[in-house]
């Protein structure tokens, strides 16, 4: 009886000695050892010819070691050899870092300036200043495509990678390694379009006068395809995603009498598309479009904590709204007005002041990427309030309160923003 018990215990033990078939390439030391266990007299010989090396460790142990390395050492580690770079690239590694608590919500801004392409990052759990780096983006995109391509770029994050979507070009920025890689641009050139990521893919719509196509980008295959036709064409719309639904929010109607006058002075003359379109990615179906409150001029919008937040500008005031996007909740589709950002009352935003709205967990960040509130006030003959440029305002959905974040660096004007967990 003891024997049968033993053999069961040992067979389990032995089983765990054999390397996983997927690890055979890296785990050959283990296999050799298990097969040679009976020969005890050639130990010296064996230790010489089959010395365990770091490279012979199985993937899971190597991942374990690499996952404890700090963010600043990852660029170096990814350049060591193919295997390391592949391991660091794997979602296993990303998940492991998450489980070790080594992923931090980081706000990234990318600005295309006359002096180069700047990326600035700010870790949300700290009060430290933004860190600014120059991206070698011009080097990877042909200059003739580069010019004018990124003036209203959209940023999308998938795991720790940031996709910079421009009119005729796309760049991928790796927040870990700092590498910049050209990716395939959208099929249709777009400007001021809606973009959002759902289940590891990117969706875009609007911003093109010639098409109403919704495109999908698959990062794995680096390819774009058209997945649907929008119910209406929009220009200047904003994208967001909640619960598998891709929202194209606000913007101007395209196809009306004001199509060609979008450039230049204020937006008064245009017809606001005071609605948003809902595309269910999984079922590839359009849900009923919804009206957007607050006068229809959506200045900024984003998704956070199962909701969509919209900053709307109206002739007399700015208003901030929350839409319940949780499809299984009873409140799905309901709008509710929430506390407005702490900006001077009755300020009317025009095209000289621009905000970028980013959802970070349950919080909403309103980043002033262009213009000065003081200038706005001065123009409407009101006294200045000493409001700086590059404001970062944080709305805590839980508490329903606004607070101030760390100012965006001056070089980051006209930046696009995104939150990355890296």
């Amino acid at each position: 009886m003891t024997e049968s018990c033993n053999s069961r215990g040992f067979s389990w033990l032995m089983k765990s000695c054999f390397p996983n078939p997927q690890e055979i390439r890296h785990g050959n030391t283990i296999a050799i050892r298990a097969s040679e266990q009976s020969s005890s007299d050639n130990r010296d010989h064996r230790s010489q010819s089959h010395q365990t090396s770091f490279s012979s460790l199985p993937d899971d142990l190597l991942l374990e070691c690499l996952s404890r390395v700090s963010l600043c050492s990852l660029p170096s580690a990814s350049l060591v050899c193919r295997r390391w770079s592949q391991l660091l690239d794997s979602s296993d590694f990303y998940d492991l870092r998450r489980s070790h608590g080594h992923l931090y919500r980081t706000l990234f801004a990318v600005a295309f300036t006359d002096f180069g392409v700047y990326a600035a990052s700010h870790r949300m759990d700290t009060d430290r200043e933004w860190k600014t780096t120059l991206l070698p983006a011009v080097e990877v995109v042909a200059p003739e495509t580069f010019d004018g391509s990124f003036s209203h770029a959209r940023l999308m994050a998938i795991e720790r990678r940031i996709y910079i979507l421009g009119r005729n070009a796309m760049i991928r920025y790796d927040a870990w390694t700092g590498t910049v890689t050209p990716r395939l641009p959208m099929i249709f050139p777009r400007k001021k379009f809606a973009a959002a990521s759902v289940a590891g893919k990117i969706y875009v719509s609007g911003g093109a006068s010639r098409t109403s196509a919704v495109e999908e980008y698959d990062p794995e295959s680096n390819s774009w395809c058209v997945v649907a036709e929008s119910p209406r064409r929009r220009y200047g719309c904003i994208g967001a995603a909640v619960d598998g639904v891709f929202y194209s929010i606000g913007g101007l109607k395209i196809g009306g009498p004001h199509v060609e006058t979008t450039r230049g002075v204020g937006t008064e003359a245009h017809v606001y598309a005071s609605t948003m379109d809902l595309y269910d990615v999984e079922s590839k179906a359009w849900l009923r479009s919804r009206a957007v409150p607050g006068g229809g001029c959506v200045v900024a919008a984003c998704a956070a904590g199962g909701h969509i937040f919209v900053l709307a500008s109206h002739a007399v005031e700015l208003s901030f709204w929350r839409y319940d996007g949780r499809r299984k909740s009873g409140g799905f589709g309901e709008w509710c007005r929430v506390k407005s950002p702490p900006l001077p009352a009755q300020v009317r935003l025009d095209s000289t002041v621009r905000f970028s709205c980013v959802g970070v967990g349950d919080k909403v960040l309103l980043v002033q990427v262009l213009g000065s509130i003081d200038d706005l006030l001065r123009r409407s003959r009101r006294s200045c309030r000493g409001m700086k440029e590059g404001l970062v305002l944080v709305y805590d959905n839980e508490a329903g309160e606004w607070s101030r974040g760390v100012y965006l660096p001056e070089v980051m004007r006209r930046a696009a923003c995104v939150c990355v967990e890296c």
Partner: protein
Amino acid sequence: MSSTKIFLKSSDDKTFEIDETAARASETLKNIIDGGCLDGVIPLPNVSSNILPKVIEYCKKHGGDNGSSKKIANGGVDKDKEILPDYDEEEDKREKVRVDELKKWEEEYMDFDQQVLYDLMLAANYLHIKGLLDLTVEKAASMIRGRTPDQIRENFNINSDFTPEEEEEMILIEDEWDDEWAFD
């Protein structure tokens, strides 16, 4: 209970003795012991005779508990404080001494060749000794931190298998990330 001896056989057929309490530091051995299969010798075909004594040394030091010095310092002491309403300074001091002593022991224990490190890591992984795995993995990670790719390759004796074209293509940005949580 502590007198119960268990025999472990290395891959090269050498037998080692270990107390049952010490052996329980290994999840794998613990499962075998709890399975009631204590009769005879437990063969460990993945652990050689030059690594097994090192593993046993660790198990002896850590007996029942499974943590490294860090874990005890962070978890154990505070927990005790919460339970005891009267804050015992003496006890706290003793605990501190114990943690310091354990740290020193770990330092000395971990002073060995790289060759041993990998074998020990494999053994800790195979025997499911979390504290030892943490120690070894942490040591390997410290050999990567703050190093250039070349230094890392040299440290681990790795050859780059990138083509020269690929290496040229790689644009490494000199980032100025703070390293403050590297040693958390």
